[in-house]
């Protein structure tokens, strides 16, 4: 598979939106793995990195989920291609900045990606749309076990899988969910939620991970610690936390509707108006407007079927995807023009909102 055909085929994220993805847009699990007796990528010499890359790519492409995958080095990717892969959560920012001897293998359906020589020799990742921690775990542990047939992992019985950074020791697993929490943001409860989630040993981040902002009211919630608990226990604990965040978000929506439905519908209606008519939109503003439309869908202002359109636009409004669609490179000001044009045309034919004040917002 080539990078061009991968970019032009829909990703797991853009293609599977249903009412099941209403609040949890996507589930993701990554495992860090290293080869025994081999220097970690950050300490390995260039020649060693090349050798690690060769061995890992060979092993990864031999597994069945990775048949006919995209197998490419970071050096072979253009800046724009790297950005697109970051926006699809298929590679990390750190990998996209790697010098030499780094690469990635991405499955044809874009559900699996294995980064080689990021912080660890292998960063195995699985993406599933919606709230599917269990399924994601089953998929990734199978791929991990298949790799074990070809690679000698660095492992000790007490410390578990050995990783470059001691914060990832043990299971070396990070399980996360990408959540859309507009009502908690509108009612200023996010700070409280973040604090509570931290107390439970989980971390809240923005859409693109560490240090990114939470535009579009989208947050990533994941486990903080990796040693001392089994994968199953971590996933169970995360599941409970996520479930309770979903309940809080639903309650916040009910409260907003009860307190002042007019005010909430006004936000949704205005967002619709701006998306139909504006001529300059930054990616941050676009994300926030799309988030309000998505909330409108959850509140039955728009039909359920539109949710997948919004989830696709969340990604297409990102700078890399926008430039790819326009077949060129543009500065931020030009991008804002192009983005607004793109969204105007998308919303010209969008179903008109139907506001009913008796809406039963449970979903």
């Amino acid at each position, binding site marked *: 598979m080539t990078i061009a055909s991968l970019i032009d085929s829909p990703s797991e994220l853009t293609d599977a939106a249903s009412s099941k993805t209403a609040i949890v847009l996507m589930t993701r699990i990554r495992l860090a793995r290293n080869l025994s007796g081999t*220097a970690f990528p950050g300490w390995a010499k260039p020649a060693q990195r090349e050798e690690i890359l060769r061995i890992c790519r060979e092993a990864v492409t031999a597994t069945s989920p990775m048949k006919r995958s995209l197998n490419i080095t970071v050096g072979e990717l253009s800046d724009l291609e790297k950005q697109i892969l970051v926006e699809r959560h298929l590679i990390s920012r750190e990998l996209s900045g790697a010098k030499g001897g780094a690469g990635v293998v991405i499955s044809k359906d874009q559900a699996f990606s294995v980064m080689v020589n990021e912080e660890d020799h292998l960063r195995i990742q699985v993406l599933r749309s919606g709230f599917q921690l269990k399924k994601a775990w089953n998929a990734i542990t199978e791929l991990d076990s298949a790799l074990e*047939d070809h*690679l000698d992992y660095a492992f000790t019985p*007490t410390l578990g899988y*050995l990783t470059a950074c001691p914060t990832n020791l*043990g299971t070396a697993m990070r399980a996360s969910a990408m959540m859309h929490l507009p009502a908690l943001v509108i009612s200023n409860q996010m700070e409280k939620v973040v604090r509570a989630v931290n*107390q439970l040993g989980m971390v809240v981040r923005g859409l693109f991970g560490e240090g990114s902002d939470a535009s579009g009211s989208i947050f990533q919630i994941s486990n903080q610690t*990796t040693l*001392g608990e089994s994968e199953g226990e971590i996933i169970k604990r995360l599941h409970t936390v996520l479930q309770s965040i979903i309940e809080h978000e639903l309650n916040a929506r009910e409260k907003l509707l009860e307190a002042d439905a007019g005010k909430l519908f006004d936000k949704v209606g205005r967002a619709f108006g701006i998306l139909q008519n504006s001529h300059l939109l930054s990616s941050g503003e676009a994300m926030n407007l799309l988030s309000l439309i998505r909330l409108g869908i959850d509140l039955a202002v728009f039909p359920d079927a539109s949710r997948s359109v919004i989830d696709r636009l969340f990604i297409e409004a990102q700078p890399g995807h926008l430039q790819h669609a326009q077949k060129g490179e543009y500065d931020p000001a030009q991008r804002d023009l192009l983005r607004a044009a793109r969204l105007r045309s998308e919303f010209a034919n969008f179903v008109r909102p139907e506001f009913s004040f008796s809406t039963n917002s449970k979903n």
Partner: protein
Amino acid sequence: MANPLKCDLCAKPATVHLTQIVNNKVHKVDLCESCAQAKGVTDPSGFSLADLLLKASLNPEASTASVRCEQCGFTPNDFKKHGRFGCPTCYEAFKGLVEPMLDNMHKGTTHTGKIPQRALERKSIYDRLTKLELDLTEAIKSERYEDAARARDEISQVKQTIPSNPKSAR
């Protein structure tokens, strides 16, 4: 002030005082202006007290830091600089450094999750083979032919149990 606090990282007077709660534990750090700047304390998004504490706690070790990882030449000072280890063997070499860190960092200090069963089985088979091959050469050298024959038979037996053909970077 009678007794001004000193910077935790150098000896200058501390002017930046930080308190952060991580996993229900209170961590306090006092820093001078320049260390605070260097550690990015002024940039709230990029700063984690936990990272700093982790590195600061290594300072006393630095004097006894002549230890090197035999496998990759890594030193505790390198860890202080990068916050990452050099290779898997470093965890054995710097055990004394790692163990106290884990308590603050994780829920527990012992792994209870997945075990790479197939890889470990394979490793134990290879360890056994290496030992048997050594026995064989020794036996031949000292002309203990009965022992040599036994080792040879055992080697061919063990070889049959090898599940697949793994590759390693070694």
